């Protein structure tokens, strides 16, 4: 509705219930190529649950997922990866006792003809990808725990895009980072966007995402309150949507909007 081309991701009327509680109730959300969509809401609003359905961690009860206009079957994380959907978790992302290259290729190692690890080839590829994302990154030989939060996050992001992610899900990407590192991750997101990757940014804090996102979708009590281009609304108006479910004039109301 905001973009006329076929969306990269289209989730329509998605519902899921856990023991009688409707965690997500007929929620619809879309994402276009090269677009950053901020998914906002309080803790427990259903935003993480909705996105975990896309990343394959949960199976939906009802609704439809279309990738590039075609109906997609996503039953587990491996299915999601096959569609080019990669998820970056803030805390669970890296094994911090091994180096960056080992983390990038974890579970998908490059091996030599003899079946042994080809560390040089992996490091070479890692240098190439990291050089694109974060040219200042030099510490390839050290365990990831020796890196700063921002550098670790760029390792996690590099892992996602290394395998040709087209859709990137970032759960609270800057929650644990300092101001400078947050800026670094912001730069990264802009680059990925320029490469045509669609990104979902999930956060409960509007300040984390408002400046990075092209569009925000606000959820409350499992329903979509409304969505808006960030150029059409103010931060305070979005805050009103998050807290009270009140939809400002610049936004498109959803099923969860308060009706007058």
């Amino acid at each position, binding site marked *: 509705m905001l973009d006329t081309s076929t969306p990269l991701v289209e989730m329509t009327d998605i519902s899921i219930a856990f023991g009688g509680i409707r965690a997500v109730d007929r929620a619809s959300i879309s994402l276009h190529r090269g677009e950053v969509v901020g998914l906002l809401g309080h803790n427990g609003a259903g935003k993480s649950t909705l996105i975990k359905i896309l990343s394959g961690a949960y199976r939906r009860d009802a609704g439809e997922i279309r990738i590039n206009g075609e109906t997609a079957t996503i039953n587990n*994380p*491996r299915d999601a990866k096959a569609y080019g959907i990669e998820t970056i*978790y803030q805390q*669970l*992302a*890296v*094994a*911090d*006792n*091994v180096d960056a290259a*080992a*983390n990038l290729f*974890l*579970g*998908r*190692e490059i*091996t030599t003809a003899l*079946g*042994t*690890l080809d560390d*040089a*080839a992996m*490091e*070479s590829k890692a240098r190439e990808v990291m050089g694109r994302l974060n040219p200042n990154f030099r510490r390839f030989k050290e*365990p990831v*725990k*020796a890196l700063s939060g921002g550098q670790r996050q760029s390792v996690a992001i590099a892992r996602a895009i290394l395998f040709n992610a087209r859709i990137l899900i970032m759960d609270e990407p800057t929650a644990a980072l300092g101001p400078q590192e947050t800026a670094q991750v912001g730069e990264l997101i802009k680059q990925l966007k320029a490469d045509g990757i669609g990104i979902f940014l999930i956060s409960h804090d509007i300040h984390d995402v408002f400046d990075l996102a092209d569009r925000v979708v606000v959820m409350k009590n499992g329903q979509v309150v409304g969505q808006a281009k960030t150029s059409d609304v103010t931060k305070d108006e979005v805050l009103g949507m998050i807290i009270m479910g009140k939809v400002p004039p610049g936004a498109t109301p959803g099923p969860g909007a308060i009706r007058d």
Partner: protein
Amino acid sequence: MAEQHAMTTPAHPSSFAQSPLQRFLSATEVDTRLLGMIGALAIIWVGFNIFSGGLFLTPRNLWNLSVQTASVAVMVTGMVLVIVTRNIDLSVGSILGLVGMVMGVMQTQILPVQLGLGLGHPMIWILSLLIGIAVGVGIGALQGTIIAYLKVPAFIVTLGGYLVWRGAAWWVTAGRTVAPMDSTFQLMGGGPFGSIGALWSWVVAVIACAAIIIGLYFGRRQRRRFNFPQRPVWAEITLALIGCGATIGAVAVANAYPWPVRIAQNFANANGIAVPEGGLFVSHGIAIPVLIAVGVGVAMTFLTTRTRFGRYVYAMGGNPEAAELAGINTRWVTVKIFMLMGALCAIAAAISTARLNAATNALGTLDELYVIAAAVIGGTSLAGGVGTVAGALLGALVMQSLQSGMVLMGIDSPLQSIVVGIVLVFAVWLDTLYRRNKY
């Protein structure tokens, strides 16, 4: 081509270091922690040598030390993987006891008598060993499955195993000691005949030196291929010299230890060799159990550093959830680790029973504690994710050196335990300090 590389290859970090020592450490890329352990070992050796009146640093004692370390050394390489994945195995001593018993009964009764191969049949030793390894792997698979799939903590499962397998060892022969072992099997325990002699020891040394040099060369070629910073040439040469020097030195020591006079005399008489003035000098050379332990160490180092399995072991230790999310079958990897541990216990059991020339009920008692202590002294962190096979092997050597040195000095055995206990705690404290400063 070479010029182009010289222009585009990034500088090695060693070119920025200030003091000569720093530059040396950075250029050779040696693990400073490992270097510290070698230093500690040197201090222990020299100290014991002084206090025992020159008895410690003799070919005879060092050769015996190497044979005594072999059994624990084989097991500690597996314990590293167990501890790295945040597990523990308290049952290794009992598994060693049970497997030793099984191998003993196999070669003294079942194979020669019940299956009619006859005593001294050339296949007996290998069949006994293979059956023992199969039993060890089976026990490991059982324990690993309970730990990984039924989610019972490894501490509990292997504590249970500690009691179960010790009891089972007794049950095999109702407590009777099984002896003597098959004569070929005995060679795995060392002794004058269980050593490979001077000539073959030199052959092993040459092969090892060639492997070191070829390994360094291929490592360098690989770095050049991908245009990575390379060590300075002098650092590569230094590493090659140190590696080859240590190998040649160790073999020279093993070759300097002659057979006991009486055995050499009998050997000479039996083979019609004229005994020269002052007795016949026959070198022991490298003992077979030591060769086995070194072979296991090399194989396990390869497994941990060059294979996917090894990579997964460390990733699981560092962050189990991340490993799981990366699509690693963490449960199956855990089972494989315990199966490997069982196989290594069986090899250690073969060395121990062969050396003792008997399988007894008490074999391997307290070994689990020595193995865990050796791994921890060798830098394996109980918090998981950290530890190397080489470090653990050094840890085993440190433990054995302490014990053997105190025996040479005539220290009472209660005091020996006290010293070993204190050293264990002290070593881990030092390690904690080292890691805190590093990161």
